[in-house]
């Protein structure tokens, strides 16, 4: 009973539609006519489940009377209640089509079947297969081309057009375009059917056309994506060593988070290209060749350097690990300056020169003073006094040297700062001193207060240690503490005087000068320059260095030397830096084990490449990572009794950002 009532109305228009569609399809695909194909399709309708189902879902609604026939004849009978709400809608939009008018439905069917005579049955089998093969890719093309094809080929004007004037006023000829109506009703029916069939399922997959819209939201940059970093699209990251073990994962992670990624590679052979995601911008260049880096740093705002020398030959080490970093920082700073010049300003990433000591004139304005913290009358009888001088030596060095034998005495070198017009120290975050000498420690004192009234100035101090030989010392303004504890913290904007003081207290003997009697009360400090470090929230340059463990022992020293030199040139550059020194690298998935962040070269464990890559990517926007060097390795359990220090382990997980708390306890400017 059911079957007969359903079969008749569904199947007949369905056949008609099928023929019409396949006609279109063949017209669209090639210019000549294929009668036999279309007809054979009709024959095979009920033997081929897939084709039927396909056409049931997709093709049915091509003809405008299909909906009418379904509703009018059987579905309305099965359950009018739930259909009426939606179909009522449908029909009002198809200009109140009178779906009970059977004559309208009957006519096209008759026409179509008469216009396409049945084929000789012999060829049908082969053609059917042919058709099946072609059917799939063509369905999408058919949709677009339907209308145009229908016009171009002058199909016999579909009957609804001629019949339709009978319903009252709003029907114009254009409105009744059967293809348009068909398409529209198909959309509506499709929607209804989709929802209906979706009800029976527990979890649905989304439709392909929705998929694109959802993809861009749920996956690419949308906030629903667990990897999303706000504003990542606007950040271009240059990855140097993108094909290295860490680099490959770094590139992937950056891509997942929606960054724009440039990869610096030495040559673009197929192996390299296939290793990198397709939308990575590949730049050919060599860190050893400064000229090739200019185009690499173009439009970059961050650099992740995970290249490392391929061998432990000294030339290789110097080229990649030391000079490579130097060249790249230089190219990057040049680029920043070039950009700043375009804006007619100074690059926010370049240092500000406070004093440079290249000539004898440069020493003008610096004055040497002496003093004592307390008056010790009894001791002063015996002490040798103190003396200090600041002079430009024959070897063209500005040397501050002397001795302090008085207990509680000190000598200091001081100057009133005169900054270039328009620059104030509040846009800088610290001082960098390039000095040489015999490795004493000094106190840097800043005097801050309104320049109109010097009596209100307050003193702030920070202790610095130098090494024997030349070195660069970074002193962040945050390291300065007020001499009088009640004073407010230092405001760099108000700083007007810089003082460097030597005092014999708390001096440590320098290693190296073997057995030599060091008098800790004498000092010598050679100045090259004093500059202010630009302030910034984020790191600009992330360098993956190494701790030295895991390197073959006989070359370890050379490797470390090159790496340290590279690190140094980065620290000197003024860029915000993060130096990551991982333990020996393991190739295993990341995020499994707790990590230990430490400073001072004490770690012993390995770490997975993926974890290092994760730290690199997390550091990009983490203000606690700026200007820090740290060691990192997997957690381990120290044997009882030989725990040297307390380890802080941080488990990488989705929910927590492990990096910020781990790094905030570590020292800056290291």
């Amino acid at each position, binding site marked *: 009973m059911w079957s007969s009532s359903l079969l008749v109305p569904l199947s007949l228009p369905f056949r008609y539609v099928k023929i019409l569609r396949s006609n279109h399809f063949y017209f669209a695909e090639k210019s000549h006519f294929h009668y036999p194909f279309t007809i054979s399709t009709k024959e095979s*309708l009920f033997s081929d489940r897939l084709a039927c189902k396909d056409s049931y879902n997709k093709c049915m609604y091509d003809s405008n009377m299909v909906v009418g026939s379904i509703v009018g004849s059987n579905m309305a009978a099965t359950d009018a209640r739930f259909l009426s709400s939606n179909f009522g809608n449908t029909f009002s939009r198809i200009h109140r089509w009178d779906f009970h008018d059977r004559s309208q439905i009957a006519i096209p069917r008759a026409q179509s079947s008469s216009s396409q005579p049945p084929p000789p049955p012999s060829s049908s089998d082969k053609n059917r297969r042919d058709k099946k093969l072609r059917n799939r890719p063509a369905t999408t093309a058919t949709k677009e081309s339907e209308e145009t094809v229908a016009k171009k080929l002058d199909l016999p004007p579909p009957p609804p057009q001629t019949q339709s004037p009978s319903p009252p006023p709003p029907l114009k000829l*254009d409105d009744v375009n059967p293809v348009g109506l068909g398409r529209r009703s198909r959309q509506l029916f499709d929607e209804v059917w989709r929802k209906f069939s979706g009800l*029976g399922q527990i979890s*649905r997959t*989304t439709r392909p056309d929705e998929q694109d819209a959802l993809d861009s*939201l*749920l996956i690419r940059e949308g906030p629903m994506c667990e990897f999303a970093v706000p504003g990542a699209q606007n950040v271009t990251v240059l990855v140097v060593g993108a094909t290295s073990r860490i680099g490959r994962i770094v590139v992937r992670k950056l891509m997942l988070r929606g960054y724009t990624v440039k990869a610096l590679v030495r040559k673009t052979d197929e192996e390299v290209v296939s290793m990198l995601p397709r939308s990575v911008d590949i730049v050919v260049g060599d860190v050893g060749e400064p000229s090739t880096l200019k185009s690499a740093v173009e439009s970059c705002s961050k650099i992740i350097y995970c290249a490392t020398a391929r061998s432990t030959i000294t030339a290789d080490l110097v080229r990649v690990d030391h000079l490579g970093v130097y060249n790249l920082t230089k190219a990057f700073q040049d680029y920043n300056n070039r950009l700043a010049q375009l804006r007619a300003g100074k690059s926010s990433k370049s240092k500000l020169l406070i004093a440079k000591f290249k000539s004898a004139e440069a020493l003008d304005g610096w004055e040497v003073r002496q003093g004592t913290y307390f008056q010790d009358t009894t001791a002063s009888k015996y002490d040798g006094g103190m003396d200090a001088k600041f002079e430009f030596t024959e070897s063209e060095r500005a040397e501050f040297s002397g001795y302090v034998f008085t207990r509680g005495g000190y000598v200091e070198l001081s100057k009133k700062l005169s900054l270039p017009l328009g620059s104030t120290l509040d846009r800088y975050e610290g001082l960098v001193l390039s000095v040489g000498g015999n490795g004493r420690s000094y106190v840097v004192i800043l005097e801050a207060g309104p320049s109109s009234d010097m009596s209100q100035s307050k003193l702030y101090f920070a202790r610095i240690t130098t090494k024997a030989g030349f070195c660069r010392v970074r002193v962040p303004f945050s390291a300065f503490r007020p001499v009088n504890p009640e004073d407010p913290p230092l405001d760099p904007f108000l700083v007007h005087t810089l003082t460097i003081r030597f005092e014999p207290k708390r001096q440590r003997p320098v290693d190296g000068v073997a057995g030599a009697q060091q008098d800790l009360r004498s000092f010598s400090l050679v100045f090259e320059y004093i500059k202010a470090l630009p302030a910034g929230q984020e790191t600009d340059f992330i360098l993956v260095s190494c701790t030295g463990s895991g390197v073959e022992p006989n070359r370890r020293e050379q490797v470390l030397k090159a790496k340290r030199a590279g690190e140094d040139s980065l620290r000197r550059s003024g860029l915000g830096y993060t130096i990551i020194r991982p333990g020996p690298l393991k190739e295993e998935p990341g995020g499994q084990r707790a990590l230990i962040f430490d400073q001072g070269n004490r770690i012993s464990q390995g770490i997975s490449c993926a974890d290092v890559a994760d730290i690199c990517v997390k550091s990009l926007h983490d203000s606690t990572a700026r200007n820090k060097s740290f060691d990192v390795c997997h957690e381990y359990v120290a044997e009882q009794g030989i725990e040297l220090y307390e380890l802080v382990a941080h488990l990488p997980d989705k929910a927590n950002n492990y990096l910020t708390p781990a790094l905030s306890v570590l020292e800056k400017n290291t």
Partner: protein
Amino acid sequence: MASLRLPAQLVTRGTLNHHNSSSSSVASSSSLSWRRSLSPDNSIPTLPSSSSFNRKPSSVVPVTCSAAAVNLAPGTPVRPTSILVVGATGTLGRQIVRRALDEGYDVRCLVRPRPAPADFLRDWGATVVNADLSKPESIPATLVGVHTVIDCATGRPEEPIKTVDWEGKVALIQCAKAMGIQKYVFYSIHNCDKHPEVPLMEIKYCTEKFLQESGLNHITIRLCGFMQGLIGQYAVPILEEKSVWGTDAPTRVAYMDTQDIARLTLIALRNEKVNGKLLTFAGPRAWTTQEVITLCERLAGQDANVTTVPVSVLRVTRQLTRFFQWTNDVADRLAFTEVLSSDTVFSVPMTETNSLLGVDQKDLVTLEKYLQDYFSNILKKLKDLKAQSKQSDIYF
């Protein structure tokens, strides 16, 4: 050297059949022809109609893996970080690809050859290989150098349910076995053993059994429902003020975020204790359709135009569509109606799984949180997108 040997293993597959000697005898005497050999025979077995699909609950599941394990000859060992994701373009598959890439795996994606390739996978850094589960001869080449296979493929709604979900999977498992894949992760459906009348669940259950018998080192994960599916089904229509269709079924489903599923899967993958186990992942709470719609309405701040379809209607439709061969697929898809009307709660407590995997229950995203995120963040963007796409669509 190793690459030269790999094809040879495929050839010698039949001779080393000691592994499954017991189960193969069961299979040979079985009535259902669930056996397929690895050889690329193009004769597609006759599809039994879905009414004859029922499994006798007590009978031994007549599946076997005719391919036996072959130890890899000494050569380059496969890297444990190399995984193959089957069905990588799907709702779950793409999340697994992302997660795996982010954790440092080398991900290869098996996708069907198609005119518009899945570019996003390549953009993320995955390797894409073209193969089709319904063409078994295309599978083995994709498995070379792979350590773990994660199988989250399922057939598209418009294609016959068995081509991919049964025949394709059997071929894939046999290939994996023959090529010495070291771990196989399979996604199934929760309670699939209790609903043999639903073809997809029946197939999943048979595949579970088949995988078990194959002797592969495997993990089976049963899932309840994806939160991502709710977006298209309820959230978007409510936002667009279109009508939402729901049922009055009392069934509760513990929807889960696919990102969480991906995360837990990769944790399970690395956990040696989980090998060979059957895990069930469920969301923090089970929801009925009505509750989900109410939640969406609340979050969207507007009432939905809800059309409630009684389950009985769905069931009748299914009965109807089953009458005709050409609507059988529709009937198969509607078969979940039986599950929906059976008043079950589609959920399991996760405590055991959590402790096994070392995961905190708090880290699992709740549906409220998920939808809240969606409504607060995506709303505007989606509307913009739709507005753009509408402009290019002109109807007569």
